């Protein structure tokens, strides 16, 4: 058996793998967005730019400080997360009393500014970032070639999504986060420093974006526009999964990556729009999203 419905198995598995890789990025990015939206009620449009900054941080750490991929995987999220914390303290926190729309506009503007800064310094053609030596090469399976680094991306993103989910659902810190998402005023009335919780949560969400950016650097080239390209899809994922739903964003992220891959095999013309078609259908049938809670 080398073909299904006339599609060579090799192409099918190739696209499934690609879908799973894209899904990994969708999942990690929409997870960060969902956490931020849940607690801060802020649609973080700068998420794509922060993902891009993660990739650039990896590139800079390598080229300016001689620190390789493994260092970048730890340091880039910390650095970009710290940047997010400053952003939240200095700008975003001033908008909590206002309509969501202001936070959205602010972060949208920030995304454009950040993107512009990197464009003017590094151009738009993209910078190469090599796959770490330990993960070069791949496995020759009977029906396809499986690059090691891509397997690593899938495993790493799954591990991160699972850890974040456990931290939110099973720890006391996560309980504070869930409680403050429901009723911040009451949590504050118990003596909890809610503004600090908001700042750290934003920082954490941004760090997740940067982590995805580091993972992306060796696959896609490091490019100022990489965030703008992916973030629209990620927003669609968040809407389909249900705004603010942690589990929903992760599951939907991987699932839609796969759906996109399959569409490329069976109906290539539809692969660019399939996610938006699904989004429209979900909004029609279940406006709160697949995993969303209707209030």
């Amino acid at each position, binding site marked *: 058996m080398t073909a299904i419905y006339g599609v060579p198995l090799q192409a099918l598995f190739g696209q499934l793998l690609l879908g799973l890789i894209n899904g990994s990025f969708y999942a990690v990015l929409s997870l960060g967005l969902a956490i931020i939206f849940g607690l801060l009620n802020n649609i973080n449009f700068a998420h794509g730019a922060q993902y891009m900054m993660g990739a650039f941080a990896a590139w800079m750490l390598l080229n300016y400080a001689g620190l390789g991929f493994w260092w970048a995987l730890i340091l880039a999220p910390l650095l970009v997360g710290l940047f997010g914390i400053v952003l939240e303290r200095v700008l975003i926190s001033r908008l909590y009393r206002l309509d969501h729309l202001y936070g959205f506009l602010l972060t949208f503007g920030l995304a454009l500014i950040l993107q512009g800064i990197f464009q003017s310094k590094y151009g738009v053609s993209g910078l190469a970032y090599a796959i770490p030596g330990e993960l070069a090469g791949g496995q020759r399976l009977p029906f396809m070639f499986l690059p090691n680094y891509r397997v690593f991306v899938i495993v790493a993103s799954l591990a991160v999504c699972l850890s974040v989910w456990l931290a939110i659902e099973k720890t*006391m810190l996560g*309980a*504070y986060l*869930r*409680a403050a*998402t*429901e*009723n911040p*005023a*009451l*949590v*504050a*009335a*118990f*003596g*909890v*420093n*809610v503004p600090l919780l908001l700042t750290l949560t934003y920082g954490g969400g941004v760090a997740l974006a940067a982590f995805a950016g580091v993972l992306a650097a060796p696959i896609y080239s490091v490019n100022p526009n990489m965030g703008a390209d992916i973030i629209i899809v990620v927003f669609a994922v968040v809407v389909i999964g249900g705004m603010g739903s942690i589990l929903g964003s992760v599951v939907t992220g991987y699932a839609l990556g796969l759906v996109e891959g399959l569409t490329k095999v069976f109906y290539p013309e539809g692969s660019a729009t399939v996610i938006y078609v699904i989004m429209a259908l979900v909004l029609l049938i279940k406006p709160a999203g697949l995993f969303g809670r209707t209030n």
Partner: protein
Amino acid sequence: MPEAVKTQTLAPGPILSVEHLEGWYGEGQVLHGVTFDVEPGQVVTLLGRNGAGKTTTLRALMGILGKRRGSIRFDGVQTIALPSRRIARLGLGYVPEERGIFASLSTFENLMLPPRVKPGGLDVEQIYTLFPNLRERAGSPGTKLSGGEQQMLAIGRILRTGARTILLDEPTEGLAPVIVQQIGRTIAQLKQDGYTIVLVEQNFRFAQTVADKHVVIEQGRAVDTIANADFEASLGKITTYLGV
């Protein structure tokens, strides 16, 4: 803070002293001057009709109400301009009218959520002894509990924090008579243990069994104070105030 200690040791006056408290929801003024004192160890009720401003008074004391003016001294500290979390840290506990049980948290997580603000709070075992239902329900989501269990949880989690002054907003509202009795016994026990309690209560017969004095709230003002000893003598007045 040294000032706080001094006030307490030199003059054992009221633990909570509210003067000319005003409060707003947005542009709408709801509190127009609430004044009353609570001595340490007292149970003081706020009585009044629906919409009189009892809940709003507690929210103002807790610092949750957006705009407030006047004076609130708690344990020697002026709290009118403090953020909510700082007020809680002074040892003021809050059991809100809607109970405030978090749906996304288990019963146990709800119990553990409020941080300890003072030494000497109950431990989990003591809370389970007080409210055995909570032990059985520890793993269930907070909102799967019955109304009575939610109220026990709302009170229990505050007793863990070590707060010695507690604001209780209609703890018996909508509960079955046996549960009302249990809550009543709990409040009496807390009073015996030296807790100070500000209790909002519609059921003035219930209030009479536990309180030292009653502050009548009418249209955002404290209009009268009645010692519990004078309760029967003032019954006519009270029923007029409450419109019952």
